[in-house]
């Protein structure tokens, strides 16, 4: 499956079904992240329920602390 993630077309493995899987795939750690899926902002508790499909547009913004 291919997803448009933060402006880049990226291939994800077949075990990626939900937004929570997308987050696990792209981050090594457990991030604080805001997700927009096909133009809709998701509440955190919906990440494991939200199914992704080929061609979906996903914006991921991680909160970091350095400065």
């Amino acid at each position, binding site marked *: 499956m291919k997803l448009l*993630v*933060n*402006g*880049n077309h990226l291939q994800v493995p077949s075990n990626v079904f939900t937004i929570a899987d997308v987050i696990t795939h792209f981050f090594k*750690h*457990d*991030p*604080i992240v*805001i997700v*927009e899926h096909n133009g809709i*902002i998701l509440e*955190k508790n919906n990440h494991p329920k939200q199914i992704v499909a080929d061609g979906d547009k996903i*914006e*991921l*913004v*991680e*909160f*970091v*602390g*350095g*400065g």
Partner: protein
Amino acid sequence: MNDRYSRQILFSPIGQEGQEKLAEKHVLMIGAGALGTGNAEILVRSGVGKITIVDRDYVEWSNLQRQQLYTESDANNRMPKVIAAKSRLEEINQDVQIEAKIIDVTPLEMGQLIDGVDLIIDATDNFDIRLIINDISQKYRIPWIYGAVVASYGISYTILPNETPCLHCLLQQVPMGGMTCDTAGVISPVVQMVVAHQSAEALKILTDNQEALRKRLISFDLWTNQQASIDVSTFKNTSCLSCGEAPTYPHLSYESQTKTAVLCGRDTVQIRPTSAGKRDLQTIAARLSNTGKVEQNSFLLSFTSEPHRLVMFHDGRVLVHGTSDVTEAKSLYYRYFG
């Protein structure tokens, strides 16, 4: 009258009127590291009226790669960052009033610093202080601009009380750590990118061009060439304890304050003693002189007992270098400072 600001005045959204407004504004810069020095230099060159710069740390060699106001001499002399920053900023523009504060910001200090401030710029390195800034911003109705970097990644968001969601709304949880400059490093271009976003938003607010504000949460990675921009307005939570209908400002309470902090990128723990009051560094230096190498300047005392180095400031704060372990740092602190 010289033409120092002529190009900025020619930029029509600012103009002469905006320039005059800018000269009357007071910005509180929390942090004088990479983001703080970058933002401060731009605002001072732009002709802001006053900047108060606050930082608890001093200049080290590892800062020079990205913290643009500092020199090798500052690192050699372990100058407190705000002192070195003030000195350089006054060379750049003597018309701007620069106030330098060597302090570790707590809610108490924030309550004192906030008087007369038009805008707070976040140039800090941890979420504990950002959540304090967030509550202060809501309580006193002063906008603030979040900015952060790690590795080649940057993020920024402008928080307007009564209008946008606050940081508490956006995070939905208290951060428990993650990547830091310690583990992932940081490159200078991403600092400059976040500084550009923060300072542009600052100029809009300070010249009363609020309609031009970005209004979106942005992030970018300058190495993997990714970027994101999200409208987060739906995150504004009417029951938020920081910005909702019945705020309690939870991060201003004593219980929520941290007494130790691991410093980003430094392999260092800061210990903030519960007992307030000015320390007699001369006496402490004499006491330590037989135990290890002691060096002093008028701002701090540095004590080395390999493999650790402990630095004490007049207010009693201690930086324990050579460890990121808070327990070990406390142990060293009590061993040498009683």
